[in-house]
């Protein structure tokens, strides 16, 4: 291989503070090895994720966006993840519609006890993103 570094996708992960964020913590304290490509952003609930966050993340250079929250029925705010399920499905369909690769956006349910699952979700996501290469469809053009 040349001196050029292998491509590492950048992932922006919106994690619910009540579960997935704690789940990522558990993965850490359990010393589970998983790729360091994800930048976690703690959010109060997946229901609070505006589709704008996702568009904005892509706009500002994310190669993939992950939204992760509590399993259905476990929401701290009772129904936040139900609302997220609808909204995220809509934005996912819209992105696919204009021709963005479907693998660039992902949603998962990871509870605070599922550190191993969190590591798996990130590992799979990175693996799926690598063949797609850098995301330049929605990315803001570099200023000259």
């Amino acid at each position, binding site marked *: 291989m040349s001196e050029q570094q292998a491509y590492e996708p950048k992932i922006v992960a919106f994690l619910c503070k009540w579960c997935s964020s704690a789940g990522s913590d558990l993965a850490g304290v359990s010393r589970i090895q998983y790729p360091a490509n994800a930048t976690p952003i703690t959010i109060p609930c997946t229901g609070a994720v505006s*589709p*704008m966050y996702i*568009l*904005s993340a892509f*706009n500002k250079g994310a190669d993939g966006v992950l939204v992760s929250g509590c399993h*259905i029925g476990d929401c701290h705010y009772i*129904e936040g993840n*139900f*609302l997220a*399920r*609808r*909204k995220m*499905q*809509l*934005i*996912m*369909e*819209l*992105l*696919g*519609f*204009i*021709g*963005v*690769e*479907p693998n660039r956006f*992902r*949603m*998962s*349910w990871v509870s605070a006890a599922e550190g191993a699952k969190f590591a798996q*979700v990130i590992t*799979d996501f990175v693996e799926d993103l690598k063949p797609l290469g850098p995301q330049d*469809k*929605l*990315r*803001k*053009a570099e200023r000259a």
Partner: protein
Amino acid sequence: MINIQDIRDTARDMLAKGEVRTVIGYRRGSRGMPAEPAFITSPEQADELIWDPTCYHNLSLYLVHDSKIQAHLRKDTGAPIGIIAKGCDARSVVVLMQEHYFKREDVYIIGVSCEGTGVLDERKLAAQLNGVQPTLAAFDGDDFVITTAEGEKRLSARDVMADRCLECRTPFPKEHNAVFGEDKTGRQLAEPFAALTRFEAQASSERWDIWSHHFDRCMRCFACRSVCPMCYCEECVVDSITFPVTAQTSAAEKADRVRWIERSATRSENITYLLTRAMHLAGRCTDCGECDRACPVNIPIRMLNNKMEREAREKFGFEPGASIGGSSLVASFLDSDPGEFIR
């Protein structure tokens, strides 16, 4: 067949009795064939009203304008506003009431059924006429009669109708106080979402090629936003007025502000704008097609909204503008909503 005289008589009567303060309708425009919105405030003016295939405007936009003016003046509105509404327009009015933008008693809906046809698509008509300037359009059964400088021309409505009218499922205004024309719900000239389905049959990369071309051309004139009755936010995410830039605003302050979408008309920002708009209209757009018509560079904006409408219908069984008491798409959910895409 709708007799325009009936609509005029209704408007005149109501204005004379003071039952409405204004009737929003259509009158002959000053640009040749197309009708223009008319605000009839006195009984004598009622004869100006017309109804023809160029009445494409969604007049519920002016109900939004009126509500904003009333809120600004802090005056009791008194009598309701009369509005001439087609099927799609009446659904827009319902969505606005669903969102408590105004109350049912503030509006008097004079419904008009599109019956067997719909409204003209000026672009399709221009292609048919080969450069001849049309001066008048009229309904005649399943045809449109177009008057041009070279005489009258009879065209099958299907050939020059707007796509959304061909695909329209409810050409009859369900919510109304008075209604003209026959209820031809179920006439279905084309499959619902036909244009969308045709587009979606293409591969992802082809879709991107087409859309990126459109996104490149958007010049952010915001005509789509101005013409949309659902885009009524006092502050739009693209132009923040909460934090105005004044002479005192320091460079550091400006740099620290969250800019969800920059105002420059570059591809990435145009995508964010148009997709955000589509998301904001999901479950609210009633497919009146005004954004498509208003776009000066012919971006098929309606297709984005149409996509959201179909997803909402197929995945969540949601129909925008179905009833005043109904819940909104993204503020409600069902236990049975699909979730297979979630890992």
